[in-house]
C-alpha cells in the first residue's frame, strides 16, 4: 500500500503548480491540470479501497495498516511528533468519499466557474483543500490530525472568501474562520490534556483503550469530572465547531457566500463531517471512558438537528436551506455516534453514522451542485425568482428530485438505508430519542420538498432570458452522483465499517422502516399540497398564525444576534476597550517617552559633531592650554 503516499502528494503538487505558476496558464489548462491530477488521486483512492477491503481479515476484522509513520519532530523524552498514513475502514471510506466528491466538484467547476476572474487561484485552493482533507483522514496521530484540521480551516477560509471584492463574502469567511478557530482552541486543549495524561498522540495506542494508559486521566479530576471526560468533551467542541453543531453553527449558513461548488465540496460533503469523523476516530475511547460525553454528543446532535430543520423550513435562499439541512443531517450523524455502543448489536449507531456520512456526502453534494446549476440558469439565489423550472432544466430536475427523495428517506434511494439505521439505533437508545429523530426526519422531508416544489413547480417567474440547461461539464457530475445516490444504499456497508471491525449484518427493522417511510410520505404529501401550486395561500396563513415562531425561525432564532451582543456589548465594550486604552496610553506612552527623550538628548549634543575641523582644532587648543596651565600650576606649587 506504499502508493497511498501519492494520494497526498498529487493534490499538493497540483496546489503548488497552480498556486505558483497558475497565473501564467490559460484558465482551461489550469482547470484541466487540477482535474487530471485529482482524477489520478481518485483512482488511487479507489485502488486503495479495493486492495484494502479485499485483503484477508485478521480475527474477523480488517487490519489497521500504517504504510508510513516517520518521526517528524523529536523533542527528546516522550514528546515526539510523527507524520504518517493510517489506513483503517473509516479512513479508507473517507478517502473514497472525499476524492469522489472533490473530483466531481473539479469537473463541475470547469463549467460553473468559466470566465471567472481568478479561475487558477480557485483551482489551487481546491487542490489545497483536498490535500488537507485527505491528510486529515489519513492522520496516524491526533497531532497530525490537528495540523491538517487547521489547514482545512484555512483553505475553507480562502474559498469562502473567494469573491474577495464582495463585502459579505469577506465577512462570511472571517466569521467562519473565527468561529471554527475558537472551537479549535477547545480541541487543542483537549489534545494537550489527553496526551499529557496518556503520554501518546497515536490513535493506534489511544484506541486500544489500554486501562494502564488511561489510569492517570481517569483518576485525576477537574471540576468534579475526570480529566478524560473533560478532555474528550473539549475535543468534541473542536469537532462541533467544524461540524456546525449548536451553538457553533452560525458560520455555516454565511459560508454559502462562497462559490456553489465550494459549498458542495466543503460545506456539505467533506469538511463539515470532519467533526463526525473525529468522534468516530476516537469512538473507542469515548465509549470506554466517557459514555456520558457520548450521550451529551447525542443530545447536542439531536437538538441541533431539530433546530436547523426548523430554520430550514422558512429560509428563502436556496443555498441557505441546503446549509441548514446539512447542519440537521450532521446532527443525525452525531446522534448515531452518540447513541452507539461497542459490539455487534450495540454498534448499530456507529455503523449507521458512518453510512449516513457516506450517503449524505453523495446526495448533499448532488443537491448543492444542482442548486449551482439552477443559480447558473436564473442568476439568483432567491426561491421567489425560481418556479416552474422543470421544463427548462430537465436533467437538473430529475437529479435534484432523486437527491430530495434520498434525503427524505424514501426507498430505494441511499438515504433511506442509512437514516433507517440511525432511527433504529435511536429507538434502541431511548424511545423518546427515536420518536424525536423520526419527527425530524419528517421535517427534513417537508422542507426538502418545499424547496423542490418552489424551484421546479409553482408559478413560473419572469426571467430576462429563458433559463437553459447547464453545459455537459456540469450535468455529467450531477448524473454520476445521482447514480451513486440510487445504488449506494445497496452497498453492504456493515461488512466494511463497524464499531468493532467485525461484519455487521444490516437488517431493516420493519416497524422502524415502515414508520419512517410513512412519516416521510406524509411530510412530502403535506409539502405537495402546500407548495405544488403557487396559488395555495396555506403557507402565508400558517406564517400569520404562528407569526412569532415564523419570525424567530427566519431570524435563525436570534443566535447571531446573541453572539453579536456578547462580542460587541460585553467583550468589546467591557473588556477590549479598557485594554486598548491601557495599551495605547500606558504601554505606548512609555515607549513614546523613551524615544522622545532620546530625541531631545540627541538634539542637545548635536553641536559637538559639526564636521568643522577648525572648530575641533579650537577645542583641542583650549584643551592643550588647560593641560599646560594645570601642569604649570603643579610645577609652581613645587
Amino acid at each position, binding site marked *: 500500500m506504499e502508493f497511498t503516499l501519492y494520494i497526498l502528494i498529487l493534490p499538493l503538487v497540483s496546489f503548488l503548480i497552480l498556486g505558483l505558476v497558475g497565473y501564467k496558464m490559460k484558465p482551461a489548462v489550469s482547470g484541466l491540470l487540477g482535474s487530471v491530477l485529482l482524477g489520478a488521486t481518485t483512482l488511487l483512492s479507489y485502488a486503495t479501497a479495493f486492495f484494502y477491503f479485499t485483503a484477508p481479515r485478521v480475527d474477523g476484522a480488517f487490519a489497521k495498516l500504517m504504510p508510513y509513520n516517520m518521526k517528524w519532530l523529536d523533542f527528546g523524552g516522550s514528546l515526539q511528533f510523527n507524520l504518517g498514513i493510517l489506513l483503517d475502514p473509516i479512513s479508507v471510506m473517507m478517502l473514497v468519499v472525499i476524492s469522489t466528491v472533490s473530483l466531481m466538484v473539479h469537473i463541475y467547476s470547469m463549467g460553473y466557474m468559466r470566465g471567472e476572474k481568478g479561475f487558477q487561484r480557485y483551482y489551487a485552493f481546491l487542490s489545497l483543500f483536498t490535500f488537507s482533507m485527505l491528510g486529515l483522514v489519513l492522520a496516524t496521530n491526533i497531532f497530525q490530525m490537528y495540523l491538517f484540521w487547521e489547514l482545512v480551516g484555512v483553505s475553507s477560509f480562502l474559498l469562502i472568501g473567494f469573491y474577495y471584492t464582495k463585502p459579505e463574502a469577506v465577512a462570511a469567511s472571517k466569521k467562519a474562520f473565527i468561529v471554527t478557530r475558537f472551537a479549535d482552541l477547545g480541541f487543542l486543549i483537549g489534545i494537550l490534556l489527553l496526551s499529557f495524561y496518556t503520554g501518546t498522540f497515536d490513535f493506534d495506542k489511544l484506541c486500544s483503550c489500554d486501562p494502564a494508559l488511561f489510569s492517570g486521566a481517569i483518576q485525576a479530576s477537574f471540576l468534579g469530572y475526570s480529566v478524560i471526560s473533560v478532555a474528550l468533551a473539549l475535543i468534541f467542541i473542536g469537532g462541533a465547531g467544524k461540524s456546525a453543531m449548536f451553538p457553533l453553527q452560525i458560520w455555516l449558513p454565511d459560508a454559502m457566500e462562497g462559490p456553489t461548488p465550494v459549498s458542495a465540496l466543503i460545506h456539505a460533503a467533506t469538511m463539515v463531517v470532519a467533526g463526525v469523523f473525529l468522534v468516530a476516530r476516537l469512538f473507542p475511547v469515548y465509549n470506554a471512558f466517557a459514555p456520558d460525553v457520548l450521550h451529551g454528543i447525542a443530545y447536542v446532535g439531536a437538538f441541533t438537528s431539530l433546530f436547523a430543520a426548523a430554520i430550514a423550513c422558512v429560509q428563502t435562499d436556496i443555498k441557505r436551506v441546503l446549509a441548514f439541512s446539512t447542519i440537521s443531517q450532521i446532527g443525525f450523524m452525531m446522534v448515531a455516534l452518540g447513541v452507539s455502543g461497542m459490539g455487534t448489536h450495540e454498534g448499530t449507531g456507529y455503523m449507521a453514522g458512518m453510512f449516513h456520512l457516506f450517503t449524505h456526502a453523495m446526495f448533499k453534494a448532488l443537491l448543492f451542485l444542482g442548486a449551482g446549476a439552477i443559480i447558473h440558469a436564473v442568476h439568483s439565489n432567491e426561491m421567489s425568482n425560481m418556479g416552474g423550472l422543470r421544463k427548462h432544466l430537465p436533467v437538473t430536475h430529475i437529479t435534484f428530485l432523486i437527491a430530495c427523495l434520498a434525503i427524505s428517506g424514501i426507498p430505494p434511494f441511499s438515504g433511506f438505508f442509512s437514516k433507517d439505521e440511525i432511527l433504529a439505533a435511536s429507538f434502541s437508545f431511548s424511545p423518546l430519542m427515536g420518536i424525536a429523530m423520526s419527527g425530524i426526519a419528517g421535517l427534513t422531508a417537508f422542507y426538502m420538498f418545499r424547496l423542490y416544489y418552489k424551484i421546479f413547480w409553482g408559478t413560473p417567474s419572469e426571467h430576462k432570458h429563458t433559463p437553459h440547461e447547464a453545459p455537459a461539464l456540469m450535468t455529467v457530475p450531477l448524473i454520476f452522483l445521482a447514480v451513486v445516490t440510487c445504488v449506494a444504499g445497496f452497498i453492504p456497508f456493515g461488512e466494511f465499517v463497524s464499531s468493532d471491525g467485525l461484519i455487521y449484518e444490516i437488517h431493516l427493522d420493519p416497524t422502524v422502516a415502515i414508520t419512517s417511510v410513512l412519516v416521510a410520505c406524509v411530510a412530502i404529501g403535506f409539502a405537495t399540497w402546500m407548495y405544488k401550486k403557487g396559488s395555495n395561500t396555506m403557507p402565508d396563513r400558517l406564517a400569520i398564525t404562528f407569526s412569532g415562531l415564523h419570525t424567530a425561525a427566519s431570524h435563525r432564532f436570534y443566535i447571531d444576534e446573541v453572539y453579536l451582543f456578547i462580542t460587541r456589548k460585553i467583550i468589546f465594550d467591557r473588556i477590549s476597550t479598557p485594554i486598548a486604552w491601557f495599551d495605547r496610553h500606558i504601554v505606548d506612552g512609555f515607549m513614546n517617552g523613551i524615544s522622545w527623550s532620546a530625541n531631545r538628548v540627541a538634539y542637545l549634543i548635536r553641536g559637538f559633531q559639526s*564636521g*568643522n*575641523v*577648525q572648530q575641533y*582644532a*579650537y577645542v583641542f*587648543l583650549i584643551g592643550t592650554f588647560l593641560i599646560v596651565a594645570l601642569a604649570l600650576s603643579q610645577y609652581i606649587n613645587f
Partner: protein
Amino acid sequence: MEYYLVVSAIMMFAGIYGFIVRRSLLGILISIELILNSVDINFMVFNRYLYPDQMEGFFFTLFAIGVSAAETAIAIAICINVYRNLHSINVKNLDEMKN
C-alpha cells in the same frame, strides 16, 4: 638662543591662529606650514646649542621639510580639485557630505 625660540613661538601661534580663523583652504595650508616650520626651527636650535657635536636634529629637520613639501603638493592638488568642482575654496561651502 632665546631669540630663536621667541621667533619660533610667534610663528607657532600665528600658525595656530591662522588655522582656526582662516576661511580659505590655502590660508589654512599656509598656517600648517608655519606651524611645521616653527617646529623645524626648534629642532635646529636645540640641536645647535644643546648638543653641538651631534647631527640628529638637522637630519630630522631635513626629513620634515621633505615630508611637508610632499604634503603641500597633495594639499594643493586637493585645493585645485575642490575649486574646479565647487568654484570656491572657502571651507564654509564644503559641506556637501553633510546633507
